[in-house]
């Protein structure tokens, strides 16, 4: 059997190789389509909701992901043992490991995603850049790695300043060095080589144009096995902290219909360059003049996919499953219209008032916001322990409105309604952002949170009320403790009860 016939195999039972909110998201789509679901869980996830939502669940190992959710052999073995014919990797974990996609195909399982080759090419920074560039996709101006200093200094003039000296082996902002003028370039090259050698054991460097105050705009693409490609417009993901997205929205404040069409076609060209199939995302950097450059392609479902779902009406996970079953896309480009506005806030277990330190502990209380235009994707529950084993994402709060303004007002309202106790969350950060003038006017860029946003000017509005409430509860508890007989359940108000006690004690 060739890989192609395997890919178009029908399936009615699927293993979800993930946990948390994304596992639930996938299980929901499967249930809607009548596909049976198999969940996997580590020692600490036995009580997680994805286990209960699934038709079947199998223990996969100890809490550390490398001994459970990342063990390809175990996942394949459970899939085969349970009779699943397909695997959905979600995001994170094994979603962008070509070896996992290959292992699924080798075992006769449908992998809900692109081919292993597409994952491999897009996972290699340089190869991805060369491949999409050959397909006419703009990339950030720069050099290949491995040039000599003399060559680099020559090319630098044509790239223009400011530029970045980057380590070929680096990533996530490590090993980068900005240079503003040609005179300081030779020293910077020397220093960067030494640094890269020391940090990564590889002194290979290259130059890249520095795009100041750039935005992160990405295009969602869907492709079937029959050569049909459709883009689902853009997402604005410029609000990040330490290269981690925290707030995403669709559409973008800075993209109009003409630019959307143009970027969409470029994104499709990038996807075509690797014969992409299934859902994928092309990430672009955009400068102030709205020039955009290919950053990378994510060959999987994205965390922030719900904002696109809300403004296009397309259920991306359902489409992924249909495509994996060999069906044609049910719509063409003309059918896709962006309507309204959607914003997503990632609710993380971290303390926005204390350097965003992760907050571990047990969630004691959760009450979700609801009402018009509110969607919550979450995988935690009262009693859930936030551990260092997995990422600190508690949930995604997504709000929809007819306009951006309405979406923001709804988000403010929903953030106030959300109740999570037991760990600290970044909800106050989101509230402060929703109040910020720069956010309201769409004036932000990828370094905005680090450069210009501070929690220190936020005033906690209900200090007096908090004081009164804690005192009332403490008082009641003290009174209850001093009683000889427990009060049992009272049908009168607590206050009547309380005052009776006080009168008795006079």
């Amino acid at each position, binding site marked *: 059997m060739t890989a192609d016939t395997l890919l178009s195999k029908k399936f009615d039972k699927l293993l979800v190789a993930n946990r948390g909110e994304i596992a639930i998201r996938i299980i929901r789509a499967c249930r809607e389509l009548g596909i049976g679901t198999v969940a996997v869980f580590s020692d600490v996830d036995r009580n997680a909701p994805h286990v209960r939502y699934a038709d079947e669940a199998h223990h996969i190992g100890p809490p550390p992901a490398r001994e459970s959710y990342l063990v390809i052999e175990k996942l394949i073995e459970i899939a085969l043992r349970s009779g699943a014919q397909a695997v959905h990797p979600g995001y994170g974990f094994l979603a962008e490991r070509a070896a996992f996609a290959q292992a699924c195909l080798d075992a006769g399982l449908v992998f809900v995603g692109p081919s292993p080759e597409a994952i491999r090419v897009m996972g290699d920074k340089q190869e991805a850049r060369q491949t999409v560039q050959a397909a006419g996709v703009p990339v950030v101006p720069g050099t290949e790695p491995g040039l000599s200093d003399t060559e680099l200094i020559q090319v630098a003039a044509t790239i223009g300043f400011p530029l970045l000296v980057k380590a070929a082996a680096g990533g996530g902002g490590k090993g980068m060095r900005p240079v503003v003028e040609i005179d300081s370039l030779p020293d910077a090259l020397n220093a960067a080589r030494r640094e890269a050698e020391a940090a990564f054991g590889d002194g290979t460097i290259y130059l890249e144009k520095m795009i100041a105050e750039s935005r992160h705009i990405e295009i969602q693409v869907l492709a079937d096995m029959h050569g049909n490609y459709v883009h689902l417009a853009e997402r604005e993901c410029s609000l990040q902290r330490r290269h981690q997205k925290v707030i995403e929205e669709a559409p973008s404040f800075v993209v109009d219909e003409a630019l959307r069409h143009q970027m969409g076609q470029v994104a499709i060209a990038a996807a075509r360059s690797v014969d992409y199939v299934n859902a994928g995302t092309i990430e672009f950097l955009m400068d102030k003049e709205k020039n955009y450059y290919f950053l990378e392609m994510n060959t999987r479902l994205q965390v922030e996919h719900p904002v696109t779902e809300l403004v296009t009406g397309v259920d991306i996970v359902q489409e992924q499953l249909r495509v994996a079953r060999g069906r044609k896309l049910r719509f063409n480009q003309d059918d896709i219209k962006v309507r309204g506005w959607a914003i997503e806030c990632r609710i993380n277990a971290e303390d926005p008032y204390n350097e965003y330190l992760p907050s571990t502990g047990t969630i004691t209380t959760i009450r979700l916001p609801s009402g018009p235009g509110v969607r919550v994707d979450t995988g935690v529950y009262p009693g859930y322990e936030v551990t260092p084993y997995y990422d600190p994402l508690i949930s995604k709060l997504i709000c929809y409105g007819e306009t951006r303004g309405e979406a923001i007002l709804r988000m403010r309202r929903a953030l106030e309604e959300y109740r999570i106790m037991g760990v600290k969350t970044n909800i106050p950060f989101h509230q402060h952002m929703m109040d910020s003038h720069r956010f309201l006017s769409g004036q932000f860029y990828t370094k905005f949170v680090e450069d210009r946003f501070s929690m220190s000017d936020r005033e906690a509005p209900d*200090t*007096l009320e908090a004081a*009164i409430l804690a005192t009332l509860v403490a008082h009641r508890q003290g009174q209850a403790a001093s009683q000889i007989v427990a009060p049992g359940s009272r049908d009168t108000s607590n206050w*009547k009860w309380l005052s009776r006690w006080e009168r008795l004690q006079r």
Partner: protein
Amino acid sequence: MKYITKVNDQEFIIEIDQEGQVSVDGRPYAVDFQQLSEGGILSLLLNNHSLEAIVEERENGWEVLIRGELYSVDVQDERAYRLARARGTVTEITGEATIESPMPGLIIDVLVEPNQVVQKGDKIVILESMKMENELRSPRDGVVKHVYVGPGASVEKNQVLATIGDAA
């Protein structure tokens, strides 16, 4: 009954005595306070201003969640407050301050040495946990007294990493 209640750095004197009547720093408030049976929800009508909140007790005080903000609240009745004061435990952060690990993780770097003078807010230790590097900073001005860990060490939650004391 009289309570001294602290939220962040603000102190309130709260008296609870008559039915539905509470005074804060001498100012009276009409209070209707209900504890709902579902999920720890409290309803407070404060001069008919309606608030929903969750109040939970922690090891070292109370946590109150109102409209997305979490408040750490310390409540002491008058007697306990006077006793504590007499023992000198109600003071500002002088004395030795400890830098504790807020979660299990790996020490990436220690940026200070014993006897080094530090300012409040200076980075002391870089801790990696949950795939993130976290900067732990000095809570006060002073001098580094002890450093208990080095780069590469695995630490547990609440483990003491360093202490900051007064200049000799």
